[in-house]
């Protein structure tokens, strides 16, 4: 078949009845791209000899190297059967699980799908996934059982065995479809049940229990794949052959004189040919006869393979060839590789493209036959019912179903993804061979120019009229040329985004003005706001989630190539250029504001693999950010974000996807060197109540403590002289200039309180704002609702904080921290200091007795600093209450004169009193004369901040400290056979299973577990590998959890010594995390440089 011209395709685009939009779906390595190659070869785009080897649609370099498809790509093919011309828009999709988002984008644009199953491997995890996707999008699948040659060549099955094998595969596929159907029916039933229950909740007496699940009533026969239905093709794409039963039925009905309808029904199934009676009988299996399919179909193929590949019997091959009526070029028949001959014979005898495309044209629906159900599903987002949509929108449904290409019909286009192409690949910038006319034109031009030149030189003295034209035209031309060249230079290397889209209704024209509808756009709102009968020409873009723009160039997607088009009628797949500013990943485009946005694509895989990305050279940061933005747009599944820590995080669906994203960033989008690393893992520090039992579950305090060999000499040296710690954990600390003394105690907060504070950080922030403004004498209005919720928060806090220890603690809260709204509390337990409470926004009037003491702010700042970074590894604190129990200042001062008020008083008294206390401070103060406060330790407020911070840290250290780890909850869907391995991976990574239950109607288990974030790097990948892709986890951050082991633990009791030995060599998880963080931050890690002194390498001389 020759190359189909563009004009023909354009002509075909206008006949929606003859358009088939379909995609090829399968598990990885089942031969999607190979089959696509065969189909492409049938249109003469590539040589049929190269089909299956070239992988034409894998246009990326890494796709070719790795041998897997990584993106979906479309190509338009022409096929004619039964006197009708068909246009087939074929979309090849990737099979690897990492790229299942690409599959979603492809499936959305299609009406039908070719599902391929490997004849050897059978139904694989991705096969199930794609069948499910096709089911969810309501598109009709057809089946191709591929790689039948492997049954002959590799497994060496006989034709009889192969038949049973194929039968089994077909059963497997149908079982998957069946389970999808059952779960849907059950779901519908459950819905109905709940409705019924709601309706008739009153009369319980007469309830009829209906045991049938409703399965019997619903008909599902047309869903299943069966060769006699004509929706199954047996093929070997690599050898270029394939057939459906129809072909053979047709063939044998002529040969044997049996009616083809009869053959059609009996060719697949338990039938055999009774040669004597010349009848086709049932029950081949029980009678030990060869089924008809084996006898008539498989045996022929088997004998052909036997003759050509295995025995290489020249004569027999000749015979077969003549009986099949096939002529093979001499070059092929002499070729040393028998496969060449085989594919030459097969591709003439049973060309796979013909079998598949005929099936596609006959069995798959055209855009005209789109099911009303599917339209409704597309048009209503989420749980909304179709009937709820505005009337105008409901009218659009008709336009959908009719798929009219009139100019009057509203344009509806769905963009499922954006993909980047090099500007060089765009048809405008491409050098194309000149057509005949163009060449003639140019020749003519050149001739003219030459003639003009001649004329000019001849008639130099006479400035004639026609001559002036020549020089005029020429420079113009030149200018245009240089301009164009400049433009090309600029654009070179710039990425262009093309929207991968389909027209559902109307005709799309280049430069047309349209509305771009975001996923949250509400047609009801849009219709209300826009005046009646307004068109896209008016720039009225006040409606949220709606933008107005004009379409760029339109392209016909031809695999690697793009062809420019002027207009595209309904029912076609196309590429739209120049939309990158309007569309992020997917969108709905329409000329009618009544059009609702389509339901968002449902992705099978959500991004889970997180890495932090950095440029090699720090100065290239802006380039990286730009590149990541482009990547985000170009990839439907990748997510990029900047974290609070300043990390640029890329989230991808899997390791392979990650690799592709990194390659893309390096070579296309950012064009810089980058490095990816494990993201930084956050921790929190907290304290707990002293444990009652030791590490071997013995009660503490009952047995003897072993005489500790290494006396804890640090116990004393840990604290500098200015700090005193008493046995109850009260820390008293004096500032450097000995003017103020602070006493602080740390108390663990109950868990509920921590959670409450964590959840209400916004409220606390509002309160703080209010208090700040109150302090300045201004008032801030807070609305009633917020006040109520603050009241609620306070009540809850009071109910959680009960007992003697917390008496009136809620009312005495001084501040929250860190950043004034964190999950830590500073409580004022000073006698004789009544400061305005943090709850003052709840009080109607302020009592006059409450005033702020001086340096109140410094205490709060010190507390904020202490809670921002704890002593264990400088991570924020969580769930700690600091109670300030002592605060003495020796500075005599007058109240209420502002922070700097004390300067003058101190000057007056400085000589007598404070000289004895701070000799350096006051002497310096005298020398400088302007301010006595400037002592050698800096301003006093600063000192107080530092003292408060230190006091909090020591108070924290005086209690049993623990680390808190961020936890993910993860939901894992797994089948029963891989359950054990899932548990294995979970326990290896310190995960904990919360619950496990079976999903109704399937054999899938849903496991809910928690897992520390610190252990999650590579988790998704490991679990996939260990379960061969049958289980896929879903990770979501859930909460903080205290790690129960003490990072500073050493064995102290006799039992612990027995159990752990002197050094406690078993790994201490908390210590490991803590040291990891400390090492990363460059803090001091208590670690020996050399573990064993004697085991060092000796660099001895002459010994």
């Amino acid at each position, binding site marked *: 078949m020759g190359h189909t011209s563009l004009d023909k395709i354009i002509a075909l685009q206008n006949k929606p009845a003859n358009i088939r939009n379909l995609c090829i779906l399968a598990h990885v390595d089942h031969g999607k791209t190979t089959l696509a190659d065969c189909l492409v070869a049938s249109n003469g785009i590539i040589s049929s000899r190269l089909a299956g080897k070239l992988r034409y649609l894998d246009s990326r370099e890494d796709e070719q190297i790795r041998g897997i498809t990584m993106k979906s790509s479309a190509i338009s093919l022409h096929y004619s059967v039964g006197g009708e011309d068909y246009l087939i828009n074929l979309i090849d999709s990737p099979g690897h699980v990492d790229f299942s988002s690409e599959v979603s984008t492809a499936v959305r644009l299609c009406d039908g799908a070719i599902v391929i199953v490997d004849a050897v491997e059978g139904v694989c995890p991705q096969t199930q996934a794609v069948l499910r996707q096709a089911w969810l999008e309501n598109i009709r699948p057809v089946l191709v059982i591929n790689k039948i040659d492997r049954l002959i060549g590799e497994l060496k099955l006989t034709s009889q065995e192969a038949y049973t094998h194929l039968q089994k595969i077909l059963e497997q596929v149908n079982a998957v479809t069946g389970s999808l159907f059952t779960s849907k029916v059950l779901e519908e039933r459950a819905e109905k049940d709940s409705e019924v229950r709601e309706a008739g909740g009153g009369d319980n007496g007469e309830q009829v229990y209906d045991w049938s699940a409703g399965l019997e009533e619903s008909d599902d026969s047309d869903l299943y794949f069966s060769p006699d239905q004509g929706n199954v093709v047996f093929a070997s794409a690599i050898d270029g052959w394939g057939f459906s039963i129809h072909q053979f039925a047709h063939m044998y009905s002529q040969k044997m004189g049996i009616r083809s309808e009869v053959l059609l029904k009996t060719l697949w199934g338990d039938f055999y040919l009774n040669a004597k009676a010349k009848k086709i009988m049932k029950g081949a299996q029980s009678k030990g006869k060869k089924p008809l399919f084996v006898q008539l179909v498989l045996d022929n193929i088997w004998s052909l393979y036997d003759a050509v590949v295995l025995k290489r019997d020249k004569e027999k091959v000749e015979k077969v060839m003549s009986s099949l009526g096939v002529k093979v070029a001499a070059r092929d028949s002499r070729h040393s590789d028998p496969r060449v001959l085989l594919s030459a014979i097969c591709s003439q005898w049973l060309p796979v493209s013909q079998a598949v495309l005929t099936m596609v044209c006959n069995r798959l629906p055209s855009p005209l036959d789109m099911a009303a159900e599917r339209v409704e599903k597309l048009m209503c987002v989420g749980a909304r019912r179709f009937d709820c949509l505005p009337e105008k929108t409901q009218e659009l449904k008709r336009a959908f179903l009719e798929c009219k290409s009139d100019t009057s019909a509203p344009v509806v286009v769905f963009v499922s993804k954006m993909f980047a192409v090099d500007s060089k690949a765009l048809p405008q910038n491409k050098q194309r061979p000149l057509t005949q006319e163009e060449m003639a034109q140019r020749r003519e031009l050149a001739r003219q120019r030459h003639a003009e030149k001649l004329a000019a030189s001849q008639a130099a003295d006479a400035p004639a009229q026609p001559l002036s034209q020549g020089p005029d035209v020429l420079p113009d031309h030149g200018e245009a040329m240089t301009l164009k060249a400049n433009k090309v230079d600029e654009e070179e290397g710039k990425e262009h985004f093309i929207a991968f889209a389909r027209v559902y209704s109307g005709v799309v024209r280049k430069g047309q003005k349209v509305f771009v509808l975001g996923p949250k756009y509400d047609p009801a709102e849009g219709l209300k706001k826009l005046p009646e009968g307004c068109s896209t020409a008016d720039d009225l873009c006040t409606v949220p989630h709606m933008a107005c723009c004009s379409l760029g160039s339109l392209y016909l997607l031809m695999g690697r190539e793009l062809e420019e088009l002027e207009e595209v009628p309904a029912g076609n797949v196309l590429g739209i250029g120049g939309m990158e500013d309007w569309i992020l990943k997917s969108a709905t485009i329409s000329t009618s504001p009544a059009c609702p946005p389509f339901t968002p694509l449902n992705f099978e895989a959500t991004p889970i693999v997180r890495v932090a990305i950095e440029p090699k050279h720090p100065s290239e940061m*802006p380039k990286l950010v730009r590149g990541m933005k482009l990547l985000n747009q170009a990839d439907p599944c990748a997510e990029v974000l900047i974290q609070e820590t300043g990390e640029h995080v890329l989230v991808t669906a899997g390791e392979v996807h990650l690799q592709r994203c990194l390659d893309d960033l390096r070579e296309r989008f950012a064009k810089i060197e980058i490095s990816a690393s494990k993201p930084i893992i956050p921790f929190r520090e907290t304290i707990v109540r002293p444990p009652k039992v030791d590490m071997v579950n013995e009660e503490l305090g009952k047995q003897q403590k072993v005489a500790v060999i290494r006396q804890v000499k640090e116990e004393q040296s840990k604290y500098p002289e200015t700090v005193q710690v008493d046995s109850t954990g009260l820390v008293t600390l004096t500032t450097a200039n000995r003017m103020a003394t602070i006493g602080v105690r740390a108390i663990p907060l109950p868990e509920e309180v921590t959670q409450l504070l964590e959840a209400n950080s916004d409220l606390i922030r509002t309160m703080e704002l209010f208090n700040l403004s109150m302090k300045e004498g201004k008032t801030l209005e807070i609305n009633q609702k917020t006040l109520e919720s603050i009241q609620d928060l306070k009540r809850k806090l009071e109910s959680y904080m009960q007992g003697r220890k917390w008496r009136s603690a809620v009312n005495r809260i001084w501040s929250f921290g860190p950043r004034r709204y964190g999950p830590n509390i500073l409580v004022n337990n000073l006698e004789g200091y009544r400061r305005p409470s943090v709850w003052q926004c709840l009080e109607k009037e302020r009592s006059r007795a409450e005033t702020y003491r001086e340096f109140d702010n410094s205490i709060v700042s010190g507390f904020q600093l202490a809670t921002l970074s704890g002593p264990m590894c400088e991570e924020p604190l969580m769930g700690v209450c600091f109670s300030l129990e002592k605060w003495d200042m020796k500075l005599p001062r007058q109240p209420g004169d502002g922070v700097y008020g004390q300067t003058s008083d101190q000057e007056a008294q400085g000589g007598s009193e404070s000289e004895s206390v701070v000799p350096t401070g006051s002497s310096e103060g005298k020398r400088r004369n302007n301010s006595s406060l400037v002592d050698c330790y800096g301003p006093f407020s600063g000192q107080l901040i530092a003292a408060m911070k230190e006091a909090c840290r020591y108070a924290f250290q005086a209690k049993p400290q623990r680390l808190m780890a961020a936890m993910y909850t993860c939901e894992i869907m797994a089948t029963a056979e891989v359950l054990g391995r899932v548990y294995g991976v979970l326990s290896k990574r310190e995960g904990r299973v919360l619950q496990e239950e079976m999903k109704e109607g399937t054999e899938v288990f849903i496991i809910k577990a928690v897992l520390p974030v610190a252990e999650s790097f590579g988790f998704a990948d490991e679990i996939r590998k260990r379960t061969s892709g049958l289980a896929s986890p879903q990770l979501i951050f859930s909460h903080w959890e205290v790690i129960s082991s003490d990072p500073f633990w050493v064995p102290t009791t006799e039992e612990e010594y027995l159990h752990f030995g002197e050094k406690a060599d078993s790994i201490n998880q908390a210590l490991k995390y803590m040291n990891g963080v400390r090492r*990363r931050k460059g803090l001091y890690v208590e670690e020996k440089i*050399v573990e064993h002194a004697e085991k060092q390498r000796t660099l001895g001389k002459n010994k």
Partner: protein
Amino acid sequence: MSIFTPTNQIRLTNVAVVRMKKGGKRFEIACYKNKVMSWRSGAEKDLDEVLQTNTVFINVSKGQVAKKEDLSKAFGTEDLTEICKQILAKGELQVSDKERQTQLEQMFRDIATIVAEKCVNPETKRPYTVSLIERAMKDIHYSVKANKSTKQQALEVIRQLKETMQIQRAHMRLRFILPAKEGKRLKEKLKPLLKVVESEDFDEQLEMVCLIDPGCFREIDELIRCETKGKGTLEVLSLKDVEEGDEKLE
């Protein structure tokens, strides 16, 4: 004195000598390499892992043991272990390459952490990560000085990094309230020190909220205090002005 023959000598390998001068005499002890620093920092708690032998020498390499009377005269005790501990704690030693390397590495990281904490990317108002700063420091070939504090060095690094990449110290947000009569005069003086003035309110008194470079804080503090004679107030609203929360790139 016993005869010094090859057969009765004990050879020590992997020796690190710790010396101390006390009471006019020099004492030495023989330790294992790479262990003395760990002992001093408290990471190593087993004395036998540090000392080769608990004999105190006059000269380790010659094997001359210190005399008992010298020891008791200098240290006031004859307990060799006690004396060894004293020498270990206060004596001078040569730091081995490994010890020095880990120390420098640690300081390098520490400096990078401080820089990352103090600075932001001026374009995005977000901090840089520590590893990025480390790489940048290697790019400018910054060498750590062991005898300068890490904070001091961090400030130096920030200055140098500014030349090669977009980096800036995170601004401090301040609010000051100045009495009206000094307000106008003081404002002119403060102007050059402020980076951004976020709000300015001048009725009875001048109230300003502004962002400053943290390096100028002391200067501003001093200025306000001196000029207003304690009438003006200064309040730190936030130490670091950075973007909070995660942001999705779109």
